[in-house]
């Protein structure tokens, strides 16, 4: 199966602090990969490298045939190349980051209109279909501040999907939610996984990870320590540190 994401020899430091050490990871089309690891281990940094929110120091990331390389010293990546990749890669954030000055509908139609150059009608039809699917079609004219956290996150997912991305990245999409709202967001993600969307998910929801992940990646202090199926990682971890981490997070 063809890989849609190919990361080779990724290194990333913030000032003198090395966050990612020589990370290699390939993700196949349609695969659901869950990244787990302790706080500060570099999960967010890794996932943010995939759509260029963080710049590499060395190594390369190939996404759907487009390549992200480290920018020349002190310069940012040419924004054209970044935009090409970001068009194909959706990102869902822990804090939702909906546009507070725009309605739900505008949040979802903005990028398709401005980036994909769709006309209003096409963008709205798509937005309605996606909002229907995440169960929010009745809230189309509301502003984000009028929605609950779970509803906001579902809008954020619809907003990303509206760009018809090839890959979806999720950075702890349920961590900022009240417990009773976690389920509704995971349900939407489950649906996406079933439909064959390629997904890279950072989450602390281990039950969910076990259920949807084709592969689980355990990252420890910026290194990929162990990769395997959900059963391999959760039931029979090989590395001591993975065992230790799992025993700590699965206890509560």
């Amino acid at each position, binding site marked *: 199966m063809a890989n849609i994401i190919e990361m080779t020899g990724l290194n990333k430091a913030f000032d003198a602090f090395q966050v990612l050490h020589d990370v290699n990871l390939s993700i196949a089309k349609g695969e659901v990969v869950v990244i787990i690891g302790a706080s500060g281990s570099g999960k967010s940094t890794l996932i943010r490298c995939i759509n260029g*929110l963080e710049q590499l120091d060395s190594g390369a990331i190939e996404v759907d045939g487009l390549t992200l390389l480290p920018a020349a010293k002190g310069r940012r990546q040419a924004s054209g190349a970044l*935009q090409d990749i*970001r*068009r194909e890669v*959706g990102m869902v954030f822990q804090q939702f*980051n*909906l546009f507070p000055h725009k309605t739900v509908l505008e949040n979802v139609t903005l*990028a398709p209109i*401005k*980036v994909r150059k769709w006309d209003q009608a096409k963008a709205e039809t798509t937005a309605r279909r996606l909002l229907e699917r995440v169960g929010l079609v009745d809230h189309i004219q509301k502003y984000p501040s009028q929605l609950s956290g779970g509803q906001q996150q579902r809008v954020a997912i619809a907003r990303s999907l509206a760009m018809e991305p090839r890959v979806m990245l999720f950075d702890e999409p349920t961590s900022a939610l009240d417990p009773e709202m976690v389920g509704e967001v995971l349900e939407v993600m489950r649906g996406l996984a079933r439909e064959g969307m390629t997904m890279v998910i950072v989450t602390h929801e281990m039950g969910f990870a076990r259920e949807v992940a084709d592969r689980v990646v355990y990252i420890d202090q910026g290194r990929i320590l162990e990769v395997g199926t959900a059963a391999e990682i959760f039931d029979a971890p090989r590395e001591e540190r993975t065992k230790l981490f799992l025993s700590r997070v699965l206890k509560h």
Partner: protein
Amino acid sequence: MFADLKAWSPELLTGIRLTVGMTFGSMAIALALGLALALGRISLNAWIRTPVIAFVELIRGSPLLLQLFYIYYVLPALGLRLTPIQAGLLGLGVNYAAYLSEVFRAGIAAVGSGQREASESLGMSPSQTMRHIILPQAWRIVIPPTGNYFISLFKDTALVSTISIAELMFQGQLIASDTFRYTEIYSIIFVIYVAISVPASAGVRWLERYFNRSGQRR
């Protein structure tokens, strides 16, 4: 005093018109140039950023009155001859642009980085992100301080009387030197400035409330 007011009203009205015109004209320059300077200040390109910072410091570090004199008396020697009105609009506009650029820069910075990241993650370019996501939110943040600068600009237009623009203050001085009725004329001028700036301040506060009410911030 009311008889005086009647007698002087043509001059005073001309003065008010010029004062208000200078206020709006230089505010327009200040807003446009202030935004450009703010964007220059946050540019990633040091060749843009450094001169902008230097320019803003230059303007903020020297008196407005000196800047007006410089534009009106020194620039002609360098080949740029301006009418008093042009010099006044430019001087006030540039001076306030420097201050507003700091307000705008802070407003842009106050919009969380998550907004930029979300927008750019959707494939929007940096300039689309600025126009559709950052500036509309920053605008709400900067309305109150910008409004206050607007009121203060209105009062500072009195300074352009020194480069022979016949605005309200200048008219007052003319009348005073004609009639020697200092108390009456300057009291009237006093009242006129206050009668305009106090309601204008109230208007700014109303705008602020209006935008807070409709501003949908999480």
